[in-house]
């Protein structure tokens, strides 16, 4: 059993390992979490996820750009892969389910993958459909998984036009499903015009929006 001081050292090391995109360090310390009986949930939330939150700030302040964030996410996943199987039942409970994908006609998936990572870290069960996803597939997957949220991504001005179509298709089958849109050409105004329930300006903001959406659904007794 690690001492409090050692536990702090490990959590700080995980935090730094994510921020400094030091994958080896994260793997070593994640193994130390298990070997020294540190709580895996604490290690994820106060180490890895806290580190990723700081990465989000660095990105927002333009100190980090996409290459750095991708490297940080690799370090984060290296730790999550080791620690997640050791969560207790209650801790492993999901906050909600989300279907995510880049819409048909668009093969760019970096933004989608970063949002997916933030959902993973935040404890959502993520059904990732990948990129260039046929619109019917979003509808089918939402119905099949009964996910509360569908997150749609598009990078190109030419592909964002698929969004209002898929929103209409999903809402026609399940009016309670909450739809979030995001990507470089999207704005709050565009999201509103498309009839989306939420707009993800960036990956961190996507999770905040999603949590609020799930809360709204639960208040209405629909989730």
């Amino acid at each position: 059993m690690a001492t409090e001081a050692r536990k702090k050292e490990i959590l700080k090391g995980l935090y730094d390992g994510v921020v400094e995109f030091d994958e080896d360090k994260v793997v070593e310390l994640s193994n130390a979490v298990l070997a020294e009986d540190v709580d895996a949930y604490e290690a994820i939330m106060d180490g890895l996820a806290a580190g990723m939150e700081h990465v989000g700030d660095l990105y927002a302040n333009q100190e980090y750009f996409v290459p750095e964030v991708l490297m940080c996410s690799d370090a984060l996943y290296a730790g999550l892969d080791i620690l997640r199987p050791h969560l207790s039942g209650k801790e492993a409970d999901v906050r909600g389910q989300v279907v995510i994908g880049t819409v048909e006609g668009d093969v760019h998936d970096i933004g989608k993958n970063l949002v997916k990572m933030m959902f993973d870290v935040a404890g959502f069960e993520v059904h990732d459909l990948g990129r260039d996803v046929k619109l019917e597939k979003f509808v089918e997957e939402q119905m099949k998984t009964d996910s509360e949220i569908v997150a749609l991504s598009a990078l190109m001005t030419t592909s964002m036009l698929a969004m209002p179509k898929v929103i209409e298709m999903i809402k026609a089958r399940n009016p309670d499903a909450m739809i979030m849109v995001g990507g470089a050409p999207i704005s709050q105004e565009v999201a509103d015009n498309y009839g989306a329930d939420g707009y993800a300006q960036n990956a961190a903001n996507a999770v905040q929006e999603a949590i609020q959406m799930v809360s709204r659904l639960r208040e209405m007794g629909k989730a």
Partner: protein
Amino acid sequence: MTLQVQPRRETMTSDERMSAIARGDRPDRIPVLSFTGGFCASIVGYPIRSIYDDPEKSFWAQTWAQELLGHDGWPTFWYASYGGWEFGGEIRMPQSELDQAPVLTRFPARTPEEVEALEIPDVETAGYFPLYTEFARIQQQFGIPVMVPAWGPFTAAANMVGVDKLCRWMIKQPEAAHLLLSKVVAFAKRIIDYFLDLFRGHPLSAGGGCATSSNQLISPRQFEEFVLPHHSEVYGHLSGKGIKPVFCHICGEQNQNLPYWAEVPFGERGILSFGGEVDLERVMDIFGDKHIVAGNVETRVIGEGTWRDVYEQARVCIEKAKYAPGGYVLMAGCDIPPSSPLYNIYALKKAVMDFGFYD
């Protein structure tokens, strides 16, 4: 917003206007260039893919759309996903109303070893180039300058291995990123030489762009290391051959990269077009006395806003850039979605007719 403006008469043809601005003379009014890709196909009743895979239909759809809209310039043939197909990957042309531009379905390389093994392709048969050559022959037939393709190496590299890989390699394996970029540069120079030989004696221009280098993706420091030297090598090769004007679309949010773009050898009086995310006044300060600046009405507004929104944005752009010493061209910030309202695109012409005349 003032909508009642005294009508003015054009005193130059589109060709005369474009020639004047290329020479550094002041035209009758600000030229307005199309950035309309699949939109042209949609308004003349052709499938969107024909803009990319049918040179003849592409030429005529663009010509007719320009006639209808009163836009200047000449039809061009390009696509943003260049690089992957030419080096042996696979591409899918637009197949449905949602599929509005070619997309790569398989990258030619995903590992540094696969990059090492890539051979520089033969321009005559590589990917898009047989179609491109066919289009260039139509340009030649109608006496239009043949546009020599000027690749942005960083964008091509991202299209060859995937943006995610290239991003990671820049940090983890920079030597793999530079190797990939050097292969693209070698091919890009070969492309220039090929078209120069093929159309020797015919008027030439050159055109290309770079989207993946935007600050939405990479830092200015990464731009300096991975974009600037390779882009400069290709454009230096181009301007060294005396081809002008050189057109370059500097796509997306590039505000922090602007000082580096200023170091790229675009030759004498290049035409540099900028995305709607870029500060046009700063662009004028950096490039306005050396080059012709084009831009930068937001594509999103053209696709989603009202024609009055487009007209107003265009008016503001004109006000900022009209008297740039190097010249100014009104243009959308990027490729316009095919489903944009027709009158929104005409609103660009309407704005230059109302505010773009030189007294």
